[in-house]
């Protein structure tokens, strides 16, 4: 039997540079716990991120990583997954990265149902650029870019969007509950298909509204209320509770899971020979190929 990987195996020597109390520490811990529980080989994990405080996360892991440009982590990850489908591809980033500048890629990645796990650290603010409104900032929230009357746009609801776009594993975690979040991330990695884990990850420096206490007073566990994650209609009903309808109760846990849907990799004709990264290069019989031009 193989020697088990210790939890520390998944940690790099680089210490996180997040502000003390940042919700992202919990997400990092949850991710490390998930891959440790699954005993994944660190060299077969690729963590891709974009730009933002949370997108520094790959540096704190001992896996392969790609720290991409702002908003483009998903297409980079999709390209890598198609080149080598045997990699466990995990994408991490923030709400600005995934739901703002990268929103188009988010929807298309989900409708393709790639076997990719997307962990979003949603703090409802732009942290690294020092406190501007984000696509998930609450209406009315005053930020550096909305200083007078606050945000006048409606926030994006990533859970409803994911359900509508074809994601086959849709969950919400909270940095105040690492244990549950780790379970949700683990479930996402195990799931064959696109998994979104939207993690409510408070920004202690720039978001004074959506704090740990704000969430602790409001969150509840979907499983405990008997939600059936195989029921898409019920998932939509739960998803739209917050922030669309009210802000008093916020559901956490697994909204939806569809185990039947084939993944993109299952359907891609060119992957049937095996991972492209291991295929021979060049053309064996050029005569056959050239014949159509003669």
């Amino acid at each position, binding site marked *: 039997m193989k020697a088990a990987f210790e939890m520390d195996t998944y940690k790099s020597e680089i210490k996180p540079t997040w502000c003390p109390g940042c919700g992202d520490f919990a997400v990092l811990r949850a991710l490390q716990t998930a891959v440790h529980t699954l005993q994944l080989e660190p060299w077969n994990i690729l963590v891709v991120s974009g730009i933002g405080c949370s997108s520094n996360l790959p540096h704190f892991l001992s896996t392969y990583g790609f*720290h991409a*440009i702002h908003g483009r982590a998903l297409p980079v990850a*999709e390209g890598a997954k198609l*080149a*080598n489908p045997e990699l466990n591809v995990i994408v991490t980033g923030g709400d600005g990265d995934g739901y703002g500048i990268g929103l188009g*890629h988010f929807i298309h990645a989900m409708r393709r149902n790639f076997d990719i796990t997307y962990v979003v650290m949603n703090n409802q603010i732009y942290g690294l650029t020092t406190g501007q409104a984000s696509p998930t900032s609450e209406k009315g929230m005053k930020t550096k870019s909305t200083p007078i009357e606050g945000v006048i746009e409606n926030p994006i609801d990533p859970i409803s969007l994911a359900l509508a776009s074809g994601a086959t594993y849709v969950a919400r975690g909270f940095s105040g509950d690492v244990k549950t979040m780790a379970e949700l991330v683990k479930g996402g990695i195990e799931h064959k298909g696109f998994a979104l884990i939207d993690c409510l990850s408070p920004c202690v420096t720039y978001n004074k509204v959506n704090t740990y206490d704000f969430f602790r007073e409001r969150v509840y566990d979907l499983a405990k209320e008997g939600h059936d994650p195989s029921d898409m209609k019920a998932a939509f009903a739960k998803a739209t509770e917050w922030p669309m309808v009210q802000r008093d109760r916020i559901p956490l846990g697994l909204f939806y899971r569809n185990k039947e849907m084939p993944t993109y990799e299952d359907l891609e004709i060119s992957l049937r020979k095996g991972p492209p990264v291991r295929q021979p290069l060049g053309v064996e019989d050029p005569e056959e*190929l050239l014949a159509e031009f003669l």
Partner: protein
Amino acid sequence: MSKRDLALRVGGAAGDGVSSTAESFAKISARSGLHTWTYSSYQSVIRGGHVWTQVRGGLDPLLSHGDDPDVVLCLNQQTMDVHQADVLEGGAIIYDVDSVKPDPTKIRKNVRLIGISLRKKAQTLSPNALMRNTVALGAAVALFAMDFRHVESAFKDIWGDKKPEIVQQNVAAARLGGDAVKDLGGPLPLGLAYPNQAKYLMTGNEAVCLGALAAGVKFLAQYPMTPASSILHWMASHGPKYGVVVKQVEDELAAMNMAVGAGFAGVRSMTATSGGGFCLMVEAIGQAGMTETPLVAVLVQRSGPSTGLPTKTEQGDLNLALGAGQGDWPRAILAPRHPEECFSLTAKAFNLAEIYQTPIIVISDLYLGEGYRTVDKLDFNVPIVRGMMAADGGTAKDFKRYEITESGVSPRALPGTKGYQFIGATDEHMESGELISDVLAGLPEFVEERRKMHEKRMRKLDGLRKDSPPPEMWGSRNADLTLINWGSTWGAAHEAILQVEEKEGMKVNSLEFPTIFPFHVDEAQKLLRGVKQSLAVEGNYTGQFARLLRAETGYKPDHFYGRYDGEPFASRDIADKILEVVA
């Protein structure tokens, strides 16, 4: 003296079947053993408008689609109106005598009017008259006295073995056109002796695809954009057989970023687009430069700025390719002149990309990318050099993905390789991949570290320059004038030179640059030393290449001839310009 070439121009409205008729004729020409060259003038419209394609065939290698045609095939009245005056003396005009009227006052002398009831004849075979083009094509084949068996073989290519009845119907339709020509005076007395030895015929874009396959491409992500779309189409239908993942994606941002991801994961990866799409790719291609990720980007230029003339050619995106992305990062820009180079330089680009771990841009244009040309047999035995891999010799312990080396190239590790885990970061980083940008930037030690890392990357330009093809001088030594050009302008330039040498006894040569960047300064200066007077010829307004040449060598071309009306260079225009500047 008998003619050594022929040209057919097919015109009509979009949707009339102009391009399929012309493509069939191009095949027939190539199978007749003629060197063949086509140019399609089309519009950004699916039905209607006016489109035409010229197919030129020659016993000798061709350099352009030619000027005035021997035969014009009119599928509507507008084609007659626009093109009847262009038909050469001794030529002919094919048209539907029931619906199209020539204007004899506009037609050159000794041009035969081949009025045939195209529609009615087609309807004797099939009620919907779809085959009227085929009747006209048969007339053209008969006028040029070509062998009808090439007609049948061309149709078999189009409809395949699955629909033999359609092939036979079309052959019958072509025969009707051929018979009509017999009744109208028979073939033109051109005196061309066809070798009937088939030649390879392909577009520049197809040659790019073949070069990519030969080099072992395994991934193409692309968003449709004229004139690069045919790369996506060809690869989508042929790629899977060779294990190539071919994806149409949501936009060019995704296309380039997916290519980066695939390149990072270890396959030979590419994307293709035109100027507008390339604009969307620039941030992500810089990302590949910073993370030292290999990929090939094919930029098939069309007329800009902005949406411009989507179906027209230009060489106006050179500055875009040179300046793509923020900051400095090492790139190479290769500019094929003809399909053979579309093949060989694309294949080379994949090697350069992996040896130097950086993006390589192959820049062509609509005229080259979409035009059909006969080519020599392509040699698929291209070397495949994958560059320095960490696991080949090094040890995983303390692996430095971005190790500072003299060549600037560091050992690469692919995800999945045990023990070599690292982060490819778009932020400035140390040799290990750890960031300098956040808590270390500005500390004296890391100011130095950043400088060294940046220099390491940029040193790769020296190797790229050494390994890329140098500039070439074509033609006479001690010429009175040197044409300076790049890319697809090559053909018309050579043809113009041959014309002025023959007619005027002038000596003109041509200085060409298959590698645009890194600029081959020493070789260029050596070649420029013998230049008495020069004329830069390129398809843009500002002389983008001429400016680069001046910036790199201090040499300012004496004259500039830019073309930016959407049409490819014509040899006679370049010849006129030569006479003008030398006089």
